[in-house]
């Protein structure tokens, strides 16, 4: 049911029944290492290139998700998802391994939010099982957006670190034996551009998009920020989180202890990962591991999950364009 301009309430019971995660080497040394299902021990994952490694990571993650869930590919109505690379190569190429309809989605690093929202909408239209999967890889993103890996450059103080990892989730309408987090509402974000043009400061470029989507969600759903135990953004990093909090505080009062960011959670400070993690795999990896498991164990009851994305390309920046950003909000409750 649509409510307001951007928000949809999910009429059916849409369970997030299972999740699967594979994390990269650095992520496996980070704060959330105990929550990941599997950590790879070298970034090429036994492949000839990092792109091939990302494809293989996705394939393995989806296979282990289906295995955990006891499903065959024939039981799955669709695989939804995306990544950061041109033509969504990792997503499309990994989907050829499964005899399942596939839909490639792109909202940069906010793709996992888009996938969950689209998945919930599909389930409301009669689908039974949908897999949502997003990934990113430090080396493939670095090559596409920045420089060759071995080039000796110094990252500026506002830079973030692209997460290597895959997170995938099985959305289903089938009744679950155990208590499972449910997708109850979602808000599709608008593309917001505040005129910032520094591709090394994406947290600041994305914070206004996160603010716009969160405030639209709270307004249209008619709840306060305190309705949620946690409002968790995708990859704003430390700076973006601070900016988001200062914008939200003008509207809803003190929210700092209620707002967190997947990019801030994933690495330890001494890992030298700039202001935090980023990438399409950042939000999915953190949600499908730490957040999902904490919800299932009862540590969190209601969260507003808001993956954020910067829709730039290397060429758009070189052509002098500013950075448009997007955020999609998904309410997940148990």
């Amino acid at each position, binding site marked *: 049911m649509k409510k307001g301009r951007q928000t949809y309430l999910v009429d059916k019971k849409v369970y997030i029944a299972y999740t699967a995660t594979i994390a990269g080497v650095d992520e496996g040394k980070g704060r959330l290492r105990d929550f990941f299902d599997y950590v790879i021990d070298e970034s090429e994952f036994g492949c*000839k*290139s990092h792109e091939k490694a990302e494809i293989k990571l996705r394939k393995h993650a989806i296979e282990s998700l289906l295995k955990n869930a006891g499903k065959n590919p024939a039981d799955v109505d669709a695989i939804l998802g995306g990544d950061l690379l041109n033509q969504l190569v990792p997503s499309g190429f990994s989907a050829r391994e499964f005899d399942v309809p596939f839909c490639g989605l792109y909202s940069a690093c906010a793709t996992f939010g888009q996938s969950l929202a689209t998945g919930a909408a599909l389930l409301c239209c009669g689908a039974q099982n949908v897999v949502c999967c997003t990934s990113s890889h430090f080396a493939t993103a670095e*090559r596409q957006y920045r*420089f*060759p*890996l*071995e*080039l*000796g*450059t*110094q*990252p*500026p*103080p*506002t830079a973030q670190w692209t997460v290597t990892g895959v997170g995938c989730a099985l959305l289903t309408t089938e009744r679950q034996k155990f208590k499972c987090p449910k997708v109850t509402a979602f808000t599709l974000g608008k593309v917001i551009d*505040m*005129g*910032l043009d520094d591709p090394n*400061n994406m947290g*600041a470029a994305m914070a*206004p998009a996160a603010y716009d989507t969160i405030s639209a969600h709270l307004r249209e759903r008619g709840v306060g920020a305190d309705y949620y135990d946690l409002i968790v953004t995708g990859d704003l990093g430390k*700076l973006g989180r*601070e*900016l988001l909090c*200062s*914008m939200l505080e003008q509207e809803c009062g003190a929210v700092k202890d209620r707002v967190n960011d997947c990019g801030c959670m994933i690495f330890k400070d001494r890992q*030298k990962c700039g*202001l935090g993690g980023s990438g399409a795999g950042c939000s999915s990896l953190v949600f499908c591991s730490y957040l999902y498991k904490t919800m299932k164990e009862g540590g969190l009851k209601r969260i507003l999950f808001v993956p954020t994305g910067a829709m730039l390309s290397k060429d758009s920046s070189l052509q002098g364009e500013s950075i448009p950003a997007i955020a999609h909000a998904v309410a997940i409750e148990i």
Partner: protein
Amino acid sequence: MDKKEYGELVKQTSPKTKEGKTLFLAFAIGGLICMIGQAFADLLTAVIPSFDEKQIGALTGVVMIFLGSLLTGLGVYDKIGYYAGAGSVLPITGFANSIVSPAIEYNKEGIVFGLMAKMFSIAGPVIVSGVSASVAIGAVYYIIGLFR
């Protein structure tokens, strides 16, 4: 909040480069690289006394380019660059790094369209501007010579 106000807020809250630390590291590590170069120059002068200064300079360049390329291939040079910044970009070892790193990266797309085509994607601008500058200065030099 409009774009201008937000731009100001971002400028104020963004962490700044720690100039003291980065300048010192660039100076120290860049200086160290130059010192190693000078050591090789002295060593070569002692070993090959028949070479003049120009030939020693060229040979030292070859040695330093080799070292820069080797450290890039071993995956060490990017770690030096993380701390040194311009200190490891400016010496000739940095130039070697800027050619070898894309060569390694794009080797996966094949020798011709990968390695060979993209090898100069970073160093290209330096070469183009260097050649252009020397052509321009050469022309000026020639014209001045006509009136002497």
